[in-house]
């Protein structure tokens, strides 16, 4: 009995070590989103390139909607931009932009200088819709299904690997789900 007791500190130490070691490889920025499974929040904001056009959540049309939060001030948005162009061209999803806390002219120029991958961009200079969506910074990307339910949130830039590991499985899932509903 005494011998076993003598080993308890060692066992506790190893257990603590395992927990802390695991903590090293976790990303503390990856928070579970409170909005998964919720309806896309309603909003009323203008369109980035057409200041007179009012947009609401009804304007995000598509079977699978990707809502990408971006801004000209955001370095990683530039990095993920070519991937977004590819994604938009694939036609598998409807890609919308949420121009977050930005200047309208700068943003329009940005889209002109590079390439506009978005069907349209919502202009949110004060980050109002951003707060509704629990956005902390750009880039972030939401996957919304055809019923307007938020199914996934990705924090950080999209690149080939993220697309393959995180987005494609979700998209295939949704496509299967729709097929089941349709037949």
């Amino acid at each position, binding site marked *: 009995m005494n011998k076993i007791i003598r080993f308890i500190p060692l066992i506790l130490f190893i257990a603590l070590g395992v927990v802390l070691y695991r903590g090293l490889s976790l990303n*503390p*920025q990856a*928070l*579970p*989103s*409170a*909005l998964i499974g919720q309806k896309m929040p309603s909003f009323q904001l203008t369109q980035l390139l057409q200041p007179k056009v009012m947009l609401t959540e009804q304007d995000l049309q598509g079977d699978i909607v990707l809502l990408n939060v971006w801004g000209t001030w955001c370095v990683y948005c530039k990095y993920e931009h070519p991937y977004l162009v590819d994604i938009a061209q694939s036609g598998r999803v409807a890609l919308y932009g949420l121009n977050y*806390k930005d200047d309208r002219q700068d943003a329009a120029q940005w889209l002109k200088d590079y390439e506009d991958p978005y069907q349209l961009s919502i202009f949110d200079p*004060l*980050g109002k819709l*951003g*707060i*509704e*969506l*629990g*956005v*902390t*910074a750009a880039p972030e990307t939401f996957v919304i299904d055809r019923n307007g339910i938020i199914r996934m949130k990705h924090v950080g830039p999209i690149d080939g690997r993220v697309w393959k590991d995180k987005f494609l499985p979700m998209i295939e899932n949704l496509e299967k789900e729709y097929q089941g509903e349709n037949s």
Partner: protein
Amino acid sequence: MKHIFSAVLMSLIVSFAAHAWNTDTYVFNDLVTEKRYKSLVKELRCPKCQNQNLADSNSPIAADLRREVYGLLQQGKSDGEIVDFMVKRYGEFVLYRPKVSGLTYVLWFGPAILLLIGAFVVVMILRKKPAKKIEKSLSDDQQDKLAQILKDK
């Protein structure tokens, strides 16, 4: 001595000044609302710059959320409603004082349980009787030898 004291006092004042808050200048109609605002931004965590609360952080999102807290207060929302508003959008993570739930049992009760275990261990050790002292005495021969040695010295 007096000089040292005033030097310490001075450095304290300076360090408090250096610990500047955000630069917001919200105007409140009454002191109670201002107090509520201050305690809310202290208790809500900035979702981007983790380990800082909304009051301490200068990140844009913290500024936005402070503005939101201020706006909600002006609308006459209660503290509970404001906290719910934040949790609904940013998750339980934004609470520096998390709610008691299945996920947070360990956080809430872990320390107390560890303390109890510690107390139990201490009690067990104290209750263990110390091993009996074995009375050791020298035989007559040894006593003589000892006396001899001491005498020779």
